[in-house]
C-alpha cells in the first residue's frame, strides 16, 4: 500500500464512529417526523438523482438559461439604474414598496421596478449598465435593448406582508404568504439565446413563499428590508442581504443609520489613506477599522458592525501576511478618486505576494477556493477585467500572465462629508466596465456555448503540431481550419500526455463549413477517429481545461502514432447548446471492437464472452468487474454482464 493510500485510509477512519445503529436509527427517527416538501419545480436542497445505468453523462453543461437570464437581468438593472437616477420613485409605506416591486416583477416592467429600489445603492450603476444595454443590443443578445426580459415571465401572487419597524427610516417587511412563478418562453428570446437554450419547451418553476427559510425546526418568514430616503420608502438590496446574513447566523442586531450619523468620524483623510489604511487593517485583521472604511451609503457595513465583528470572532477570521512595501497614488475628480495600489509582502506560508495595479499575485498554493478546477496549476496571478469566463462566476478575474490592455487597475474611493471611503461597488463596476467594453462577438459565442460559430484562428495542416494559445480555460477556445477528404478519418491529440494513463482534459469537435457538426458532434479524441463526409474545408474547435500553451496535432488517423490511436475507453460527443456528453464505452451499451479475448493468466472468463478491443487483455478485478486494457493503468472496465459478441 502506498504512503498516499495509508494516509487516505487514516483520514477515512478519523474520529470515533457512533455505529450504524445509533446513526441510522436517529436518521430514521428524523425522517419519520419529516415529510417531503411539496415545492413545485424547485428543490430547496437539490438532491442528485444518480443512476448507475450506463447513461451518457453530460461532461459539462453550460447553464445557458442562467447565462441568458443573467445578462437580461443585468440589462434590467441598467434600466432600473437609469430611471432611479432620474425619477423620485418609491412608495408611501414599506409594504407598499415591496408590493410595487412585486407588481413590477409580475409585469416584467423594469421602469416600475426602478422606482422602488434604493437610489443610493443603484445610482452608481447607471453608467455601467447603460453600456451593458447598448452592448447587448449590438451583439444581438437581446432583440430590443428596451425589452431585456422578453422571454421571461414572472408572476408574484397573493403576497401577504407585515412590516416591522427597525428604526425611523428602516423597516423589515415579512413575507408570510404568496407565490412566485417563473416561466421561459423560448420563442421570445433572441435567436442567439434561443440557440443556447436548445430545448424549445417552455420551462416553469414555482416557489411557495410560505415555506420560509432557515432551520426546519423553526422556519422563519422571508423578508425584505425597506429604507426611507427623501421621504419615500424603497427596497434595499444591501440591507436585505446583510440582514439575512445576520439572522441566519444569529448575530447581534444592527444599529440602523449609525453609519450615516457618524460618517464624519469614519473613513480616511485622503483617498490614498483610505486604501493604505484598508490594507493595513486587512493585514492586522482589524475588521473594525476595515468596516469603517467602506462607504456607508453604498454598503451599510458600519450599521452591521456588531454582527460582522461577532461573526469574525466566532470563526476566528484572521489573515496572516506581511506588507513589506506599499504605495498608493490617487487621481481625484470631484468627490470620486481612482487609487492605484502597488504593494508586496509575504503570505502565511512565507511565499511572496504582490499587487501591481490590476494584477494580484498570491503565494503559491495547491489548494484553491471554489469548486472548479482553475486553469493553470502554477498560475497564482489574477488580473481583473479578463474577457473570457462567465461573468456570473469568478470569471471576471481570470488567471493570466498579465493585465488585459485597458483593464482597470484602480480602486474607486468616494468622498462623503469630507471623508474618503472605499467604494466596493464602484471598484467592482470598473471591472465590469472593462469586461463589457472588451466583450466582443467571439467572447459572447464562447459564453453562450456556441463555439461552432467562431471564425478560425488559423489554418492548419494535418499531422502538424500547433501550439495552443496561452490562456485557454473554462470558456475559451481555439479554432483551426483544415482541408479534408471524403472518408478521411481524423484524430486529435494534445500533448503533453498526462501520466498514469490519464487522458488530458479537453474537448474538440469538428464543424462543417455551414456550422453543423461532423458525425453528430462526436469528438476525435481518446483514440476515436471521426470520418469526414466530403472533400472540403472544415473547422476543429478545441477547448482545453489545463495549462495553456500545450501542443495540438490533428492527425490523419491512418498516419497517427500508436499512442495517439490508443483507445482509453471514453467517447465524447458534443450535445445541444454547450454541452458535451462523454461516457465510458466500457460501461455503456456501446461495444468495443470485437477481438480475441485473452484472459489473464489463471483467470477464467465466465460466459458470455466479453467483447473487447483487439490487443487488449481482460483481467477480472476484485470488485467483480473485468479490466480490459492495453496498459495496467488504463481506466476502462466492462460490466460482468457485457453482451456476447460472436
Amino acid at each position: 500500500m502506498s504512503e498516499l493510500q495509508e494516509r487516505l485510509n487514516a483520514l477515512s477512519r478519523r474520529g470515533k464512529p457512533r455505529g450504524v445503529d445509533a446513526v441510522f436509527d436517529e436518521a430514521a427517527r428524523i425522517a419519520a417526523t419529516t415529510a417531503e416538501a411539496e415545492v413545485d419545480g424547485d428543490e430547496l436542497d437539490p438532491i442528485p438523482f444518480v443512476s448507475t445505468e450506463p447513461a451518457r453523462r453530460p461532461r459539462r453543461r453550460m447553464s445557458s438559461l442562467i447565462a441568458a437570464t443573467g445578462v437580461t437581468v443585468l440589462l434590467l438593472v441598467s434600466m432600473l439604474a437609469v430611471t432611479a437616477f432620474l425619477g423620485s420613485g418609491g412608495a408611501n409605506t414599506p409594504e407598499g414598496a415591496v408590493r410595487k416591486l412585486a407588481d413590477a416583477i409580475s409585469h416584467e416592467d423594469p421602469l416600475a421596478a426602478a422606482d422602488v429600489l434604493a437610489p443610493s445603492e443603484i445610482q452608481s450603476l447607471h453608467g455601467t449598465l447603460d453600456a451593458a444595454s447598448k452592448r447587448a443590443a449590438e451583439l444581438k443578445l437581446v432583440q430590443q435593448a428596451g425589452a431585456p426580459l422578453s422571454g421571461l415571465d414572472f408572476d408574484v401572487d397573493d403576497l401577504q406582508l407585515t412590516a416591522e419597524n427597525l428604526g425611523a427610516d428602516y423597516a423589515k417587511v415579512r413575507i408570510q404568504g404568496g407565490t412566485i412563478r417563473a416561466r421561459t418562453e423560448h420563442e421570445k428570446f433572441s435567436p442567439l439565446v434561443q440557440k443556447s437554450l436548445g430545448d424549445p419547451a417552455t420551462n416553469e418553476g414555482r416557489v411557495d413563499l410560505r415555506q420560509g427559510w432557515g432551520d426546519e425546526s423553526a422556519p422563519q418568514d422571508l423578508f425584505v428590508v425597506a429604507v426611507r430616503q427623501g421621504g419615500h420608502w424603497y427596497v434595499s438590496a444591501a440591507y436585505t442581504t446583510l440582514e439575512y446574513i445576520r439572522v441566519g447566523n444569529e448575530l447581534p442586531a444592527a444599529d440602523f443609520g449609525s453609519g450615516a450619523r457618524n460618517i464624519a468620524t469614519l473613513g480616511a483623510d485622503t483617498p490614498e489613506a483610505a486604501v493604505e489604511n484598508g490594507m493595513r487593517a486587512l493585514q492586522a485583521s482589524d475588521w473594525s477599522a476595515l468596516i469603517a472604511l467602506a462607504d456607508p451609503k453604498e454598503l451599510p457595513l458600519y450599521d452591521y458592525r456588531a454582527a460582522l465583528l461577532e461573526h469574525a470572532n466566532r470563526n476566528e477570521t484572521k489573515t496572516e501576511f506581511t506588507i513589506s512595501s506599499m504605495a498608493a497614488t490617487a487621481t481625484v475628480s470631484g468627490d470620486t478618486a481612482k487609487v492605484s495600489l502597488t504593494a508586496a509582502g509575504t503570505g502565511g506560508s512565507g511565499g511572496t505576494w504582490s499587487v501591481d495595479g490590476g494584477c494580484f499575485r498570491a503565494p503559491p498554493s495547491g489548494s484553491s477556493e471554489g469548486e472548479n478546477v482553475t486553469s493553470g496549476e502554477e498560475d497564482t496571478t489574477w488580473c481583473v477585467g479578463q474577457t473570457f469566463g462567465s461573468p456570473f462566476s469568478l470569471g471576471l478575474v481570470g488567471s493570466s500572465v498579465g493585465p488585459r490592455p485597458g483593464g482597470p487597475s484602480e480602486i474607486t474611493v468616494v468622498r462623503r462629508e469630507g471623508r474618503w471611503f472605499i467604494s466596493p461597488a464602484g471598484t467592482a463596476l470598473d471591472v465590469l466596465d472593462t469586461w463589457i467594453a472588451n466583450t466582443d462577438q467571439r467572447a459572447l459565442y464562447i459564453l453562450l456555448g456556441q463555439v461552432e460559430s467562431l471564425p478560425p484562428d488559423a489554418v492548419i495542416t494535418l499531422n502538424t503540431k500547433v501550439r495552443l494559445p496561452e490562456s485557454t480555460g473554462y470558456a475559451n477556445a481555439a479554432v483551426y481550419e483544415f482541408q479534408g477528404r471524403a472518408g478521411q478519418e481524423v484524430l486529435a491529440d494534445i500533448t503533453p500526455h498526462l501520466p498514469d494513463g490519464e487522458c488530458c482534459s479537453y474537448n474538440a469537435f469538428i464543424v462543417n463549413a455551414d456550422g453543423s457538426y461532423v458525425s453528430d458532434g462526436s469528438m476525435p479524441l481518446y483514440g476515436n477517429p471521426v470520418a469526414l463526409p466530403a472533400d472540403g474545408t472544415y473547422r476543429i474547435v478545441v477547448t482545453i481545461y489545463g495549462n495553456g500553451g500545450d501542443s495540438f496535432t490533428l492527425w490523419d488517423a491512418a498516419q497517427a502514432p500508436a499512442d495517439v490511436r490508443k483507445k482509453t475507453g471514453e467517447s465524447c460527443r458534443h450535445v445541444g447548446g454547450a454541452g458535451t456528453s462523454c461516457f465510458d464505452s466500457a460501461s455503456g451499451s456501446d461495444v468495443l471492437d470485437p477481438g480475441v479475448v485473452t484472459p489473464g493468466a489463471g483467470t477464467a472468463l465466465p460466459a458470455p464472452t466479453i467483447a473487447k478491443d483487439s490487443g487488449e487483455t481482460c483481467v477480472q478485478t476484485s470488485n467483480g468487474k473485468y479490466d480490459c486494457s492495453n496498459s495496467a493503468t488504463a481506466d476502462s472496465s466492462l460490466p460482468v454482464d457485457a453482451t456476447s459478441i460472436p
Partner: protein
Amino acid sequence: MGRQLALADSDGKRGTRVGVHERWGPEATRELRELYEPLRRFAAVIGRWDVDPDDLVQEAYAKVLVKDPAQIRDLGPYLRRTIANLATDERRRKSKVTSIMNRLNESGTSKDSYPSDLEDLMRLQPRVRALLFLVECDGHQIAEAADAVGMTHSNARVALMRARRRLRSELALEANGE
C-alpha cells in the same frame, strides 16, 4: 445541522406520512445499513475536520429515508453524492475569507488541529481529496468518483493529476526530511 425540506401542502396541512420502515422495507433498510461504513469513511474524507462524519452520514440517511425507494436506482452513489453536497453546504455555512485572503493565510480561518501527516491531504480541496480516496482506496473508476463528488469527468481527471503530482513531491520532501 443542515436544513430538511419543509413540509407543506396546498391546504397548509401536513401531508400523509408513510412510516419509514413501511416505505423502505427490510431488504432496502438492510442495504442502507450495510452502506454505513463506506459512507462514513467517505464522509470523513470529504467533510471538514471539525465536522463529525457521522453527522454527515446521518443527515444523508435522513434525507434519503423520506424519499420513495423506487426513485433511487443505486443507493451507494446517491448517498455519496448527498454527503458531498451536505459537506459543501456545511463549508459554505461557515464564514470564510475570500480566496485571496485564504491564500494569504495558510492556516485558514478555522482552528484545524489535525495531525501533521494529514496536513497535505487537508490542504486539498475536499472534493479532490474525496476523489483521491475513491479512486486510490476504494477502487472506483474516475468517472464514478467524479459523479460521486459532483465534478465533471474532465475536471476530475485534471484535479487528480495535479493532486497526485503535488502529493508525490510533498511526500518525497518529507522522506528527505525537508
